[in-house]
């Protein structure tokens, strides 16, 4: 089983040189720490910055410079600031090559639910609906099952949707899955996790084609 950090590390392998990337809150944020050596990627935060850097030192904190998680950040050389309409123009206009975000549920046809649990306090979708509806390339980072051990990889989402037919790839603590016609194609297993383990944790249709390799780090 992968740790959250390892999920982020595995997703970082999907990065390509020259990509602009939007990372959601939680595990996705960690991806920024594992950019492959020599690769240039630039991070967009939907509140209005391209070229987001690491957290500031205590002396460099600027209340006017935060990311979409409202965390204080820094800007790298070559960064730019812009308004929210321009920010989502980048997202909706598919100028951002990769979006990584968390999910509560993903379904066989690529639907994603990650913003609302009926009966619980609704915090709002923030930029998630724009991101999932627009991105050409969406990777979901999440645990394969919920705290009660129930699969989050489903035939059909039970929670209110954030977007339909948009998820392309899922990296969980157990596996790398690709959303294809007919279900979830198992691409890789986590170290020491068997295909049977993954099958058991997957409620949606799992497509197993040939020998499934173990992830490499």
């Amino acid at each position, binding site marked *: 089983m992968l740790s959250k950090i390892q999920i982020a590390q595995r997703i970082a392998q999907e990065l390509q040189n020259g990509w602009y990337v939007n990372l959601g809150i939680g595990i996705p944020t960690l991806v920024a720490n594992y950019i492959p050596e020599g690769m240039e990627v630039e991070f967009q*935060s*939907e*509140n*209005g*910055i391209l070229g987001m850097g*690491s*957290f*500031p*030192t*205590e002396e460099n*904190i*600027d*209340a*006017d*410079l*935060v*990311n979409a*998680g*409202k*965390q*204080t*950040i820094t*800007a790298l050389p070559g960064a730019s*600031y*812009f*308004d*929210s*309409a321009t*920010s*989502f123009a980048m*997202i*909706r206009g598919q100028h951002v090559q990769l979006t990584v975000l968390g999910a509560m549920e993903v379904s066989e046809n690529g*639907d994603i639910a990650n913003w609302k649990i009926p009966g619980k*306090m*609704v*915090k*709002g*979708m*923030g*930029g*998630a*609906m*724009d991101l999932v*509806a*627009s991105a050409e390339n969406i990777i979901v980072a999440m645990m394969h099952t919920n705290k009660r051990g129930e699969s989050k990889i489903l035939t059909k989402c039970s929670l*209110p*949707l*954030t*977007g*339909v*037919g948009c998820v392309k790839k899922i990296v969980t603590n157990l596996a790398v899955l690709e959303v294809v016609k007919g279900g979830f194609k198992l691409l890789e297993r986590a170290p020491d996790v068997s295909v049977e383990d993954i099958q058991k944790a997957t409620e949606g249709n799992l497509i197993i084609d040939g020998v499934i390799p173990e992830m490499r780090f």
Partner: protein
Amino acid sequence: MNKVVNNVEEACKGIEDGMTIMLGGFGLCGIPENSISELVKKDVKNLTCISNNAGVDDFGLGLLLQKHQIKKMISSYVGENDEFERQMLSGELEVDLIPQGSLAERCRAGGAGIPAFFTPAGYGTEVAEGKEVREFNGKPHILESALTADFAIVKAWKGDTAGNLIYKATARNFNPMMAMAGKITIAEVEELVPAGELDPNEIHTPGIFVQRIFQGETYEKRIEQRTVTN
């Protein structure tokens, strides 16, 4: 063109019970602190507030929520506020949640005379309920309408007497679009300078969108998530 008003009281003159107010800012970043305090002081009620977030319990729009001045919030994310949650669950507060990009674009559309536009965001979700769906380039989109407000209140870094505004870093966020979409737009700035001192090439919000401008007395600029590296 002199847009300067003497103080925050004068700036907020005419804001009345039941009005729709847009407020710039993302979280607590770039919010019009002085004007929010004045709204608390004025005790205007039954406001509809359009703002990406709803502040925290004791700062930003949270201050208006504490005093039950807000009837309805139109936002994209409201998750940092216990009083908000209580009022929402009890039904005291109406909440209209809008995807962040659609919120930004709807404000811009309101300011730009575009009454409606198609966006893919929210298709197939409850956001799309009751909205027209149309396919473009093989992809379904929903029709979203413009947002405007009786007053828009924005916060900038620098402003001049002609109402031109420059924002700082990510404190820009929703401020420029909301400045466009207010019937009356109030700008509070950290530094107010004479017309001619700002480079016309560096202005983010041209003065035509601003009706009243003043320099805020103080800015606390509270930080929500203080994150540092060592």
